[in-house]
């Protein structure tokens, strides 16, 4: 028997196990309760249609990011920069890093990404199988991003551990997340001090040491608040995307073979995977004034959850939205957000995923899940595969 819609809405959640059947939930919400209120996480409104997300994202004065964009938060001591800032500072902060993630910069680092993918594949491509999350999906963005950011490669295990404790720990134990956050800040404080003793490098850390905003250098706090976001934003999301794409391809040999035979189809497939299996299913805004919006009476201070994962399957925008069609031509999805907060790392993420899939398929064209419990589509957990037909 179907859960009554009022109950579904009141209990709407978007973490962990709730994501197992996210898409079924979203479909019901869009059809029966596209604008609703959940009692979880201290209470929030949710908006699940494409049109809602478009409007909210473009109205930064009503829907502020400055009081946090996550529920539960990462427990960062100050707003993360630039994601938890509003105009006019938002664009000024973005300008500091935006050229480092432009398409042309990403084109220039593509050979490096390709090398990283192949170095990782060298370690397991000839085996009978592997946990491709542990051996490929997770380390690839780690190595690529840390190099671009200027995070020392010898600290990979620490980054991995912090990312897990903060992103996944926060939902079960805030104290776990808080301790990890404190460790990250202490780490970066030391790293900036070290870097200040040397000539500035051409990486994110180096850029933050020389950058100016409003004609003055960044403060120590601003640098930390940006570096923290870079660490949290640059690793886990891309790993999730690579993993979820391989998860899908393991189960769909026809699509897999099409892409293996013609890698020029991969970029379009990546857009479809971004639409349907996106790492960032939601983001949060805070209402700054009492306002009627899409039938909801919002009050100052209310939390609003934008459900990108649902907007990306909105029947009003996408034909047969719950079908993954790797050759879908009309695909203006919102996986990287929209408006002035559009994900700064989007071009890099796209390229990492495209190269990851291309190289994986080139070297391991046939693969399926190993026997046992089928893995869930979401997260960065194990993805054990067997190779060959």
């Amino acid at each position, binding site marked *: 028997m179907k859960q009554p819609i009022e109950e579904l809405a009141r209990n709407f959640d978007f973490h962990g196990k709730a994501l197992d059947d996210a898409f079924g939930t979203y479909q019901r919400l869009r059809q029966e309760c596209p604008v609703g209120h959940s009692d979880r996480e201290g209470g929030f409104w949710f908006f699940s249609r494409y049109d809602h997300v478009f409007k909210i994202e473009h109205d930064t004065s009503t829907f502020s990011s400055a009081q946090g964009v996550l529920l539960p938060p990462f427990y960062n001591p100050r707003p993360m920069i630039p994601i938890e800032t509003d105009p006019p500072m938002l664009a000024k902060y973005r*300008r500091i890093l*935006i050229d480092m993630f432009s*398409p042309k910069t990403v084109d220039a680092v593509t050979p490096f990404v390709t090398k990283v993918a192949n170095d990782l594949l060298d370690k397991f491509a000839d085996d009978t199988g592997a946990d491709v999350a542990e051996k490929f999906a997770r380390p690839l963005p780690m190595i690529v991003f840390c190099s671009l950011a200027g995070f020392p490669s010898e600290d990979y295990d620490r980054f991995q551990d912090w990312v897990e404790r903060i992103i996944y720990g926060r939902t079960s134990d805030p104290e776990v997340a808080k301790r990890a956050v404190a460790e990250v800040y202490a780490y970066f404080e030391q790293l900036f001090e070290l870097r200040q003793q040397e000539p500035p490098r051409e990486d994110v850390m180096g850029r933050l040491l020389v950058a100016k905003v409003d004609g003055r250098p960044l403060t120590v706090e601003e640098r930390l608040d940006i570096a923290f976001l870079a660490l949290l934003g640059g690793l886990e999301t891309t790993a999730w995307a690579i993993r979820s794409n391989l998860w899908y391809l393991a189960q769909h040999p026809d699509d897999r073979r099409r892409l293996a035979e013609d890698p020029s189809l991969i970029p379009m497939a990546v857009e479809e995977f971004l639409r349907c299996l996106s790492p960032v299913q939601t983001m949060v805004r805070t209402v700054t004034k009492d306002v009627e919006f899409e039938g909801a009476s919002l009050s100052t201070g209310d939390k609003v959850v934008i459900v990108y994962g649902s907007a990306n399957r909105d029947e009003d925008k996408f034909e047969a939205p719950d079908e993954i069609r790797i050759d879908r031509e009309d695909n203006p999805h919102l996986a990287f957000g*929209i408006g002035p907060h*559009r994900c700064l790392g989007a*071009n890099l993420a796209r390229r990492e995923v495209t190269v990851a899939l291309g190289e994986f398929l080139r070297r391991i064209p046939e693969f399926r899940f190993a026997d046992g419990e089928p893995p869930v589509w979401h997260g960065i957990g194990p993805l054990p595969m067997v190779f060959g037909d």
Partner: protein
Amino acid sequence: MKVTVDREACQGHNRCYLLCPQVFDVDDEGYAFVRVEVVPQEFERKVQLAARNCPERAIKIETSDQG
């Protein structure tokens, strides 16, 4: 066919540049602009595709009888 990018609306998603780099270029920050305002016939379909894939709806197409 004529095409323009609304620079105010562009947020640098770069779908256009990925789909049709022959017509769309990007600056150092990743914001799009058109290389040519009048679209060569062989790229008309890709330009329409780019417009449909811009989440910001920043790409405007004008068609006349002459194309």
